[in-house]
């Protein structure tokens, strides 16, 4: 475990900690820890099998629905987060350096290229967060990764196909969504590239991870470390975001929101709020909003499809692992304003 000692030499204060639990060496240690891991799986499964419904029968119906709603957001996103972590590990550790030289050097062109990178990685927004972290560890700038994060959920084949299936070319919804995403993503990238000290937009713990990215150990070893690091950073944020989304859905009566559907200005804001709260995957949100298509004007639908794919509760919780609150407020403000303008503009023109 050479790299462990190298690392603990850097952080002196962890010496006692490391001494308290000396790493078991060799194949026996690995087999032992593998057996402990499998035992943990068995223990979790056993708990599920013995858990009695009577233990929680006192929960009120609204409480149960809160749990069901939150878990549905979580279970829907979880595989995409795992997939995003896997792709992030591929990009960070397995992709040869020369692949990065294909990106243009000129900043505007470089961001434009990154905004269509989602075509290669068709995971939806939550999977893109670990991927963006991997890109930054690989040396991409803050503005550049935000361009990717904002664009990729929409400018990818799965989202484009599902939006086409839902709306076809009706009312310019598909084209507005694609063009809007491209323009907003590049605007976001440009705004953040003007920041004098981009590294202050990152959370200290992620900055530390960037600094700690020593190339020690074999690729498999580093992949395992990366999987442990990313799941430790992402999953608490994903769970918090899912439960927050569930709680707000229980708290805000939806018919109040939808009652505002006919208003040309308010309806755009209302659908953006709905997108923010529901925290759907960009791959499928078109089908969801299709049910409201007869109630709402085109501008609101497009604002829902553009804003919701870029920023929502679950997404902000995930992004908070990496970007500071100030950066996220700026991001939300830029994306929100642009989506609002896009939606209102469409309502005026159409």
């Amino acid at each position, binding site marked *: 475990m050479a790299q462990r000692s190298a690392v603990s030499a850097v952080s002196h204060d962890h010496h006692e900690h490391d001494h308290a639990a000396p790493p078991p060496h060799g194949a026996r240690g690995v087999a032992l820890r593998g057996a402990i891991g499998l035992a943990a*799986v068995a223990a979790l499964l056993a708990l599920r099998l013995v858990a009695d419904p009577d233990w*929680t029968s006192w929960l009120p119906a609204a409480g149960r629905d809160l749990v069901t709603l939150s878990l549905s957001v979580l279970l829907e996103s979880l595989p995409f987060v795992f997939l995003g972590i896997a792709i992030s590990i591929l990009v960070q550790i397995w992709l040869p350096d020369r692949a990065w030289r294909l990106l243009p050097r000129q900043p505007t062109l470089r961001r434009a290229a990154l905004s269509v990178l989602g075509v290669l990685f068709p995971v939806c927004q939550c999977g893109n967060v670990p991927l963006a972290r991997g890109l930054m560890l690989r040396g991409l700038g803050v503005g550049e990764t935000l361009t990717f994060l904002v664009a990729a959920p929409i400018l990818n084949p799965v989202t484009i196909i599902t939006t086409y299936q839902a709306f076809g070319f009706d009312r310019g919804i598909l084209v507005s969504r694609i063009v809007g995403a491209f323009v907003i993503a590049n605007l976001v990238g440009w705004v953040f590239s003007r920041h004098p000290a981009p590294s202050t937009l990152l959370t200290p713990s992620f900055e530390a991870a960037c600094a700690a990215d020593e190339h020690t150990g074999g690729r498999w070893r580093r992949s395992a470390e990366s999987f442990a690091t990313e799941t*430790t950073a992402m999953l608490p944020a994903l769970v918090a975001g899912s439960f927050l989304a569930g709680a707000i859905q229980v708290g805000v009566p939806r018919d109040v929101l939808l009652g505002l559907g006919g208003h040309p200005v308010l309806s755009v804001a209302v659908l953006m709020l709905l997108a923010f709260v529901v925290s759907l995957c960009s791959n499928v949100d078109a089908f969801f909003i299709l049910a409201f298509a007869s109630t709402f004007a085109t501008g609101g639908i497009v604002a829902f499809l553009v804003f919701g794919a870029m920023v929502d509760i679950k997404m902000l919780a995930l992004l908070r692992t990496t970007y500071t609150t100030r950066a996220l407020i700026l991001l939300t403000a830029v994306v929100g304003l642009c989506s609002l303008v896009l939606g209102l503009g469409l309502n005026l023109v159409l």
Partner: protein
Amino acid sequence: MSSDSHHDHGHRAGPGRHVPPWGLLLTLIGSVSILWLGTTGQLGLYIHPRYFVFTEVTAALAALAAVAAFAVRAASTAGGRGWTAGATAVVLVLTLLVIPPATLSNATVQQRSVNASVDTGDTTKLVGTDPSNFTVRDWAGIIADPGSAATYAGQKVTLVGFVSPTASGAADTFFLTRFVITCCAADAVPVGVPVTASRWADTYSADQWVKVTGSFVPAGDSGDAALVLKPQTIAVVPQPAQPYEG
């Protein structure tokens, strides 16, 4: 995790700060519960069936990766503080492994209003096809659209759904309700067909699953629906394996 508390003020630790790999435990909790839900046929309470295979395969691979990473002592080199991850583990164990899986109930129906967003655009495509295949959502669209509804007055049907009181709490009408989901339960939209049954609340309760056989008859001038379902029989049935329409 005591080392964490020392470090908080100095914020964070330079490179190489080692956090126990809580993420691996969280991965195992999520994966085990997805695989259990999938095996027992309950994953549909949360997500649309089109994602079952993808979700289960990813969960199985993630569980394997987590056990393997734990076996080789992979540590987390950055990321969340220990207490956040620990609290997350507790919440996940309670909600995924202790509380029994449940479908959405009338608490959510009331919150989202039955038929608030029925898309009648599709309804015209139904006319002329076999009405015995129509879902509750299809019927909700038909009876909301006077043009289509005229075609189906007198139509006999058998529908399964759960009992919801009407918004006004009518004593002689309940909604036979289903949730429609496109992605996951978070986007569920309740749709329903009004069923006339005087003093229904004496026999049936909200959230009870029923199978109603009867025929559609023109509604009085009250309400949004052009047709209501007049039952011949109402049978209490167990909750279907796939409670949502999708």
